[in-house]
């Protein structure tokens, strides 16, 4: 018998109907959760925090409105409106009230909000003043860390405003023993405690809250059972009536008990997935290895003749649709950085099992098929690749990539597993890794990874080297030696490392402060009872209850820093083409590009105020000379034409220097070293949950907004332009095609960046056309992974992208298109030919 079934399965006519209904209206903010949690908190003042959290969750699940949507087979909706969202005032709320009148009209991820909802929220919000995690986090932070964030060196905003999320729970356990089984486990742990134990007081209240939460989930499912039964009674369509009765049966059994069929397993999975996100507002709640833990139920039903592949596919497709029903409203700034209503529910297929054998099964293929059927952004589908990955799975994944949906992301087991072993995971746990959120690996069911802990802009510290730690008139970094006095490249590089190290420890301070705030104010009993070994340790995940605890802040801008530092090394110190002083001036004047810009009066006023404050605080003598010096260093002096010409000349020399991404061993090895300036210092720090820091090298989409806050950099990048994306070369700087770029990226040390790295490549669908196109595409990934690349994803571009590429060819120098049997770089083609290709983009394959 075949090891797995890889044939294609047709889409059920139900799926397009579900999708259409889901996207019929703009998503809406609903007030129920905020109102209910506030009611509960008002009643539990003074009680232990676990009890308050447990009772609040119970109160929400008992009273929040429920709905079964038309045509649904899998039920459980957090809001009445499709793709609506609830709010989470215990984390933060002030931003929402401030944005009440703009949230429906903003460009990134708008949400409708009714006047009634606004009123309801306005009534409960005042209760939370002074009680949120974000307020407590601020009071825990060191002043210099807050200052560094005000100056945009890094941001820890994600967990500052929201819950943590970024977790994959033991879905397998819930499917197997149900919440009744989990309650029994908790009871058992409780029974083994003595009332005289040192930690009994806390433990007993936690166990009580866990049991209360699990029971609340069982009861919540039964509300759906009752609703389904009621609806069946009123339904005139016999087919739908039978479906509703089946739903009622399912919700009576699961997730209370272990699943006895694939359908029940799907429903049980869904309640877990949905309700974790109702307990807390954290995103990146990742289903992980869905094809693995769902398989036994599928296999048993299939073998027993209880289910057809078509029916199983339909249920999986229904889950895929439901994953897009969940939503979250972020503040306007964050919404820009996470645009696309994304919750980053990462689901991964394929790879090895705990024993190191290939784990591909029927469901691995069916998950890919589901993404093709549903064609929606969730789940964030990923695939694990190793040397033993079946070729047909690889090709099926490539086919999905070719559709232009941007999925799946490809991960290399051969790098991930050793990277995780190096972080102390057991071999079995490392082999069983899944991906959280964007690109972050962890052992599912055992890890509180804090994977999205911060964005750190590696370009900002180099600005501090040029300013000796000053920014907008304030000392925010280390007062390193003026660059004009530096005699060697090493002196400069050391100063960069000094600024980096200083800022990294402030980032750690900020993250740890937020960590403490979550621990104190938002421990999560429900989530924790599905994570090892929270029950055994008698701690929530927020208090270090998990087996593995990490904090993973990500850095970005490696390519800019590698190119920039390399240019300084070569052009300033080896070839002596210009001095550091000249470069400093050129950067201050944005390489002569904004010669016309006068100083902004608002900035000037702020600068003056800061200068005054600084000087007063340090009790320094304020002489005219000092003030002039400081002010001129901030706003610069107006440059002459000759000076601007020189700055442009400096940029030209920098632009001509070798760049990361072109398979040049010297630059690439240099980039590897530059990445270490972020990844290595991070390793030495610990978090309040008893875990370590581990760096990631990926930006989500923060490289654009954070780039806008960054001045010109020594790699020739102009002020306010985006910073390089993940570990990818700077846009347009890789000119030798996809293999050369991949080889450069592979030369970085991906193993040390064990919170994940992100490498993006852009292709036009035509480059993947036909079987040969798929084969070559698969070989490109294999070849990159053979050289220890960690992750790769593909942006198969749309018509809009091509139009943008015509306007801004500098950003698309490496975009591959296929024309009449040839592959070519898009930007090298004539306008008329480009137009031809744009017209053809819509035609598919």
């Amino acid at each position: 018998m075949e090891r797995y079934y890889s044939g294609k399965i047709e889409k059920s006519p139900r799926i397009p109907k579900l999708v259409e209904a889901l996207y019929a209206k703009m998503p809406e903010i609903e007030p129920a959760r905020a109102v209910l949690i506030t009611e509960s908190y008002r009643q539990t003042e003074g009680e232990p925090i676990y009890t308050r959290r447990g009772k609040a969750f119970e109160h929400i699940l008992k009273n929040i409105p429920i709905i079964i949507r038309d045509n649904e087979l899998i039920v459980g909706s957090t809001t009445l409106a499709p793709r609506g969202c609830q709010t989470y005032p215990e984390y933060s709320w002030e931003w929402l009230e401030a944005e009440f009148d703009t949230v429906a009209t903003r460009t990134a991820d708008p949400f409708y909000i009714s006047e009634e909802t606004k009123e309801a929220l306005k009534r409960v919000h005042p209760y939370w003043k002074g009680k949120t995690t974000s307020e407590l986090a601020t009071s825990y932070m060191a002043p210099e860390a807050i200052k560094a964030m005000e100056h945009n060196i890094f941001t820890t905003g994600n967990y500052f405003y929201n819950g943590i999320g970024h977790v994959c729970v033991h879905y397998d356990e819930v499917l197997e023993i149900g919440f009744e089984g989990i309650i029994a486990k908790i009871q058992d742990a409780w029974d083994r405690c003595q009332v005289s134990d040192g930690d009994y007081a806390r433990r007993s209240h936690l166990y009580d809250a866990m049991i209360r939460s699990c029971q609340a989930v069982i009861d919540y499912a039964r509300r759906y059972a009752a609703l389904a039964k009621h609806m069946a009674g009123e339904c005139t369509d016999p087919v739908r009536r039978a479906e509703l009765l089946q739903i009622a049966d399912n919700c009576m059994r699961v997730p209370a008990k272990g699943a006895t069929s694939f359908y029940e397993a799907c429903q049980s999975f869904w309640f877990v997935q949905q309700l974790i996100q109702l307990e807390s507002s954290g995103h990146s709640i990742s289903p992980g290895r869905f094809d693995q833990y769902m398989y036994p139920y599928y296999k048993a039903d299939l073998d027993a003749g209880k289910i057809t592949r078509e029916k199983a596919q339909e249920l999986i497709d229904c889950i895929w649709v439901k994953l897009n029903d969940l939503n979250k409203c972020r503040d306007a700034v964050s919404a820009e950085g996470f645009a696309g209503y994304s919750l980053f529910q990462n689901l991964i297929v394929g790879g090895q099992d705990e024993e190191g054998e290939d784990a591909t099964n029927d469901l691995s293929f069916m998950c890919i098929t589901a993404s093709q059927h549903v064609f929606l952004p969730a789940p964030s589908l990923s695939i694990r690749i190793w040397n033993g990955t079946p070729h047909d799975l690889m090709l099926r994944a490539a086919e999905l990539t070719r559709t232009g949906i941007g999925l799946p992301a490809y991960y290399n087991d051969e790098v991930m597993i050793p990277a995780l072993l190096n972080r102390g995971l057991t071999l079995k746990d490392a082999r069983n890794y899944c991906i959280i959120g964007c690109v972050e690996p962890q052992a599912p069911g055992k890890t509180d990874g804090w994977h999205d802990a911060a964005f750190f802009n590696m370009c900002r510290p180099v600005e501090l080297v040029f300013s000796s730690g000053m920014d907008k008139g304030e000392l925010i970094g280390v007062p390193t030696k003026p660059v004009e006095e530096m005699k060697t490249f090493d002196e400069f590089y050391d100063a960069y490392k000094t600024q980096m190290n200083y800022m990294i420890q402030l980032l750690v301070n900020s993250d740890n402060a937020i960590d403490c705030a979550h621990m104190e104010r938002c421990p999560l009993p429900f989530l924790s009872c599905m994570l090892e070994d929270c029950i055994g340790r008698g701690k929530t995940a927020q208090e270090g209850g998990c087996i593995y605890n990490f904090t993973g802040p990500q850095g970005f801008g490696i390519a800019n820093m590698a190119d920039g530092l390399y240019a300084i090394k070569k052009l300033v110190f080896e070839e002596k083409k210009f001095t550091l002083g000249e470069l400093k001036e050129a950067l201050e004047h944005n390489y002569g590009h904004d010669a016309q810009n006068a100083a902004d009066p608002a900035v000037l006023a702020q600068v003056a105020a800061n200068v005054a404050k600084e000087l007063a605080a340090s009790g320094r003598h304020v002489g005219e000379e000092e003030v002039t010096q400081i002010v001129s260093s901030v706003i610069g002096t107006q440059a002459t034409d000759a000076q601007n010409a020189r700055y442009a000349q400096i940029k030209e020399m920098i632009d001509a220097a070798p760049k990361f991404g072109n398979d040049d061993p010297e630059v690439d090895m240099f980039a590897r070293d530059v990445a270490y300036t972020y990844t290595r210092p991070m390793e030495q720090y610990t978090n309040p949950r008893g875990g370590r820091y581990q760096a990631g090298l990926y930006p989500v989409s923060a490289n654009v907004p954070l780039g806008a806050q960054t001045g010109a950099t020594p790699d020739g990048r102009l002020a306010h332009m985006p910073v390089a994306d993940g570990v990818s070369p700077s846009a347009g700087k890789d000119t030798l095609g996809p293999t050369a770029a991949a080889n450069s990226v592979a030369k970085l040390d991906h193993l040390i960046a064990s919170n994940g790295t992100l490498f993006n490549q852009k292709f036009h669908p035509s480059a993947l056309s036909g079987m040969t196109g798929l084969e070559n595409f698969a070989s490109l990934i294999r070849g990159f992974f053979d050289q220890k690349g960690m992750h790769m994803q593909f942006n198969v571009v749309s018509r809009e992208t091509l139009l943008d590429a015509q306007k801004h060819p500098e950003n698309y120098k490496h975009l591959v298109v296929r024309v009449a049997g040839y592959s070519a770089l898009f930007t090298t083609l004539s306008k008329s030919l480009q137009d031809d290709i744009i017209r053809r983009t819509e035609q598919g394959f």
Partner: protein
Amino acid sequence: MNDRNVTGRIFDIQRYSVHDGTGIRTIVFLKGCVLRCRWCCNPESQKFEIETMMVEGKPVVTGRDVTVGEVMDVVEKDRAYYRRSGGGLTLSGGESLCQPEFARALLKSSKELGINTALESMACAKYEVIESILPYLDTYLMDIKHVNPEKHRQFTGRSNELMMENARRVAESGMTELIIRVPVIPTFNATPEEIRGIAEFAASLPGVRKLHLLPYHRLGQDKYERLGREYTMKEIVPMEQEYVEMLLDTAIKASGLECQIGG
């Protein structure tokens, strides 16, 4: 003389090429050609002399002299991808056979490094020259543009007898996989009769199994301007997909070979 030290003249090395031979390949474009095809999409390949093109108002030198060792260092960089895809090195041009020592040394070095080799050429050289490279060549992608000597001369500058004779001798040698490629150019060879003629010729060559039709495109048009030359095929528009498919059908029927559009 050590093969690595042999020098030659190229105008480009293009990595991640996926249409000239199997798998992911690195194409080395040798400079200099014996023909002057009017539709040539690489006009900078025709002259052996190093030339200057004007690109967006700036002069760009095209053509450089390199050693085999320098080229092979670049070729070797994508070994991981060749291994996974069955790819390797492809020599193109120009006509590589115009630099026989260099071409032979490149192919030989490649084989010694375990890298698959292909040659895109119209076999316009003495057979002895071709024979000397065959031991190092896995795939010969040979252009047959027309079976009519006069029309061939009119559009490419030379008659086709030598090339057709060489095609037969390469096929009979059995030393390499021979694939016939036809640039399909409106006004030159794009009628069903003309394609049928080429297809029948290809079918008559022993051991040939594949025929590629490469439809005319305008990728090279800009380069003529950059070289300060006139593009004489301005009025020629690319064929409709349906028409090309009709020609493909004609080729299949006439030859019985595995035929495809594109490389």
